[in-house]
């Protein structure tokens, strides 16, 4: 009797916990979908070919988002140019070269915690290092490097895990045939891990493209008349453009539709890049 009773309480506790978690998940999804709906319902009217391909006009109260859109693509591309080699190399170091000792454990821990640092801290770091100390000024270069720092922990962790997931048997087979460590990395480890590394890159792109805080102090422009032609120029960026439209425009009410249109484009951009990454990751496993 006693045991049946306790089994029943356990069952109902289990059911209650399931329900609670289910509700929490539902609430979260509802929140996300409401936000999406909110943005989409207000933004979709302004979306047009011209909106995408024309620069802002009339003190940013009219026109499109071409300049900030291209700026975001430039920043993302440039930051990936820095993040990918450094991140993949560091991931390789951790997975193939680093022995498990106090030093590498501290390094790993540092990288994990770096992933949790608020992005504005990266912004201030970029300001003092790239803008001031290295003298790159407020520019596409400084902003991209700051974004690169932000994405680095993610890139390192993703590529380290990708390399670690390569079965030991492959390495053994390679070494037993007389391969050097570098040959083994190039011919066996890297090809087996490549698609997982690409997934990490895509997730990093998704992380970087929507960031505002790291670029405000380091190279994002309030307004530029045209596209940036060199990496030493300031550059408009979509997230910052939205922030500007919402807080510092000439006529905030008048620019509302443009704001929502810009948000919609950014959200769709980031969501699709991230979903692509998640889909690729799922497909691998």
């Amino acid at each position, binding site marked *: 009797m006693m045991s049946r009773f306790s089994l029943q309480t356990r069952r109902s506790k289990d059911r209650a916990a399931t329900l609670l978690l289910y509700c929490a998940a539902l609430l979260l999804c509802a929140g996300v979908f409401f936000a999406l709906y909110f943005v989409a319902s207000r933004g979709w009217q302004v979306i047009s070919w011209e909106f995408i391909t024309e620069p802002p006009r009339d003190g940013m109260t009219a026109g499109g988002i071409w300049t900030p859109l291209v700026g975001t693509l430039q920043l993302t591309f440039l930051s990936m140019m820095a993040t990918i080699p450094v991140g993949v190399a560091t991931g390789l170091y951790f997975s193939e070269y680093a022995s*498990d000792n106090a030093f590498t454990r501290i390094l790993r821990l540092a990288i994990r915690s770096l992933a949790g640092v608020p992005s504005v801290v990266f912004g201030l770091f970029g300001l003092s290092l790239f803008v001031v100390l290295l003298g790159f000024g407020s520019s596409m270069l400084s902003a991209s490097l700051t974004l690169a720092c932000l994405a680095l922990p993610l890139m390192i962790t993703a590529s380290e895990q990708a390399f670690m997931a390569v*079965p030991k*048997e*492959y*390495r*053994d*087979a*390679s*070494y*037993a*045939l*007389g*391969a*050097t460590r570098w*040959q083994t990395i190039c*011919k*066996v480890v890297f*090809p*087996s891990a490549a698609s997982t590394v690409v997934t990490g890159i895509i997730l990093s792109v998704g992380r970087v493209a929507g960031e505002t805080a790291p670029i405000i102090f380091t190279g994002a422009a309030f307004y530029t008349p045209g596209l940036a032609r060199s990496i030493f120029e300031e550059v408009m960026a979509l997230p910052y453009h939205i922030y500007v439209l919402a807080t510092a425009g000439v006529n905030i009410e008048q620019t509302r539709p443009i704001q929502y249109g810009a948000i919609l484009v950014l959200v769709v951009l980031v969501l699709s890049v991230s979903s692509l990454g998640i889909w690729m990751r799922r497909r691998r496993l």
Partner: protein
Amino acid sequence: MTNIAVSSVITGREDRDAGTEKDVHIGTRGLDLYYGEAHVLKSVSFDMYRSSVTAFIGPSGCGKSSFIRCVNRMNDFIAGARVTGELLVDGDDIYAPGTDVIALRRRVGMVFQKPNPFPMSIYDNIAYGPRLFGVTDKDQLDDIVRRSLEWAALWEEVQDKLGSSGTGLSGGQQQRLCIARAIATEPEILLMDEPTSALDPLSTARIEELIRDLKKDFTVVIVTHNMQQAARISDYTAFFLMGELIEYGKTSKIFTAPDEARTGDYITGRFG
């Protein structure tokens, strides 16, 4: 070990296909292997001869795989693995500081206990070793791939699908692919860890034939749980028990008149 030398001196007879016993290819002197605290090989000393087949027998966990992994220094990759004593290949201690491990592994091929083909095509699996050594000529590679597959009794089954993945083969086919890959570089010593454990009788017979062929040029060390196989193909047999080399000598002697009662018990299956 001593009784071989003595017996061959007394009888004055050399086993013709067994290589000369003066020609030691692999020798160990008080070899100990530890995995952390675990003492896996205990002061193993014996000589293996050039152009001969040496079979390692012994119950599961006695250290046979561990021993052959010492010979190409694959134990280097196991954290906490430590070797003391000497392991001589052609008279050189391969654990001496300054040993070129890469060069060693090019001379000592290995077939692993578990088949481990690369996730690449059958062709690329076999061409992997030769390419490491700088063979780039297409015709030459084609030749090596074909010959190695024929040797390993796999050519007929895969000749039409050399481009398909090696991991898509059956377990037994993967095993033969790994054998083909190991011999493609023509190592002077071939370590084979239960190479026929996943094979049907026909392929097993082909591999045994291969081993007999190989020993004309190569020194073969083979781990096997199949006593008949050891008796059939090996010239010498080493019996291990809990990390110790209990007995080593001519296969004909080990299987007919072993010095140690434990050896006889194991071979006849009276051993737990």
